[in-house]
């Protein structure tokens, strides 16, 4: 069964005013449990509005959203419970930290869920471990940390709620390459261990190519595509027309194919390209590898 099911979703901002704007237009989508989905689209394409619907922060103008088969907007009590199944990490989440200790901040979500002390403690420690926070840091103030560490505390705060679906809105924005790889690695590990569904909003096609299995492309409030990463990047020229960029490697592969070399089109990572080129060279019969 699909963990997220969206039917004919449309959202219009400030309806009936001069500022009226269609943010999401007639989106139909089913995401299976356990997928790692890269969500891409230019600013204003509707991807932020779409993900806020999945968490129930924004009500649809029309259409339906089912989480785990339950209608999100059927009734208020249920919505509160369903919302805990979908964790949402906003952009620059470090700006939402407020507690006196790192431990308390991570525990904020689980406490709101009404869990008992023991369960909260277990979850906080497990979440902290996922993002590489050591036990001796737990009593420190989150405001003493570096930017990258703060962000990991904020992400842990959502992980501790152990949602079935985890949505991250550009979790690596503004970080240096090392901090970026660290966070993405931790998210990947979390995904593999917990087997939850992940939606990763990113401007970096390189990151989507490296980590995601599926890609969801939004363009001008409509869903352009939802398919495997390979199939999505095969539409490179259309994606570039939307003002997005495809990974440099995909362009190299396209260039080689344009020259007539027999290299598969579905290669989007450095490792993949290396293997394919070595294989091709070997077929030439004169490889010195």
């Amino acid at each position, binding site marked *: 069964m699909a963990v997220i099911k969206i039917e004919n979703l449309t959202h219009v901002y400030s309806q009936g005013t001069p500022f009226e704007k269609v943010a999401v237009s007639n989106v139909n989508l089913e995401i299976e449990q356990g997928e790692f989905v890269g969500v891409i689209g*230019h*600013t204003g394409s509707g991807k932020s509005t779409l993900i806020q619907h999945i968490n129930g922060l924004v009500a649809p103008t029309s259409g339906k959203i089912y989480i785990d088969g339950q209608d999100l907007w059927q009734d208020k009590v249920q919505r509160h419970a369903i919302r805990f199944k979908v964790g949402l990490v906003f952009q620059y989440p470090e700006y939402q930290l407020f507690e006196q200790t790192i431990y308390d901040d991570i525990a904020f979500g689980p406490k709101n869920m009404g869990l008992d002390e023991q369960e909260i403690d277990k979850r906080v420690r497990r979440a902290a471990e996922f993002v590489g926070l050591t036990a001796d840091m737990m009593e420190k103030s989150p405001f*003493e940390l*570096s*930017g*990258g560490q703060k962000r990991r505390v904020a992400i842990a705060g959502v992980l501790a709620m152990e949602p079935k679906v985890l949505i991250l809105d550009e979790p690596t*924005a*503004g*970080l*240096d*390459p*090392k*901090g970026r790889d660290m966070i993405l690695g931790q998210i990947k590990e979390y995904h593999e261990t917990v087997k939850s569904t992940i939606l990763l909003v990113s*401007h970096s096609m*390189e990151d989507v190519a490296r980590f995601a299995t599926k890609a969801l492309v939004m363009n001008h409030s409509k869903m352009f595509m939802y398919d495997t990463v390979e199939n999505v990047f095969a539409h490179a020229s259309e994606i570039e027309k939307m*003002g*997005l*960029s495809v*990974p*440099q*490697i995909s*362009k*190299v592969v396209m*260039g*080689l194919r344009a*020259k*007539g*070399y027999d290299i598969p089109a579905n290669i989007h990572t*450095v*490792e993949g*390209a*290396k293997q394919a*080129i*070595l294989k*091709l*060279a070997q*077929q*030439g*019969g*004169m*490889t*010195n*590898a």
Partner: protein
Amino acid sequence: MEKFISANGISFGYHSVDEQDKLVTVLDGLNLSINKGEFVAILGHNGCGKSTLAKHFNAVLVPYKGDVIVDGMNTHDEEKIFDIRESVGMVFQNPDNQIVATVVEEDVAFGPENMGIESDEICRRVEQALKDVDMYEYREHAPHRLSGGQKQRVAIAGVLAMRPKCIVMDEPTAMLDPKGRREVMQTVKKMNREHGMTVVLITHYMDEAAQCDRVIVMDKGEVLLDGAPKEVFTHVEMLKNVGLDVPQTTELCFELSKAGVEIPLDILEVDECVDALSDILEKKGVKA
């Protein structure tokens, strides 16, 4: 070439709050010079001291040891502080936090107003600066209604209106989307190529560094590598060790050469890479 900024053995540190006033060194006897008209990228992981260095270039910070000479003026000389700030403009990461006024043109005028320039001249400068960054048609807009890339261009115009000789940018694209990043890079490149402006660009994006004339890599408060992008990016392993990246094409060539393929290591662009690869494949007798 004529030196515009030179840092001669500069050291800088601050007193740690929690560890009994212990001195934490950020810059450690650093030597560096930037020539007039150059387009320089400074790379380094967070906390390597690159932002601290940038703040030395316009006397926001002064070294406790060594000298920074900007356009012939020593930043230790307190009387020259405003002359230095007039000749070296700064653009920061968060576009929201450097725009002062509620109207675009009023904000661009802020710098020249502080310099005590007369009203007619300010108007001319504001108009020119906004045209240079391609934001003239937005002159009467409210800044908070603009996109990130547009706001950052307004911030650049605010600096240009002061007519500096050099512009130092501290991660100006970190908070922008790809479109905003392209807009800002285009604007900066144009200022450098067409107006001969000296540009120092601090960034985490390797593709931006690849577009510069010169790349400086910093680590632990010192200069680790310094040279043309093609040269610097061949040090793939060294860059990875200090937490940095290289462009994907460079990484591919590096990986292939590790696997025994003879391929040049200084490839930054896609077309260059495709040509090099097809050359190699041809030599190996692979038919296209």
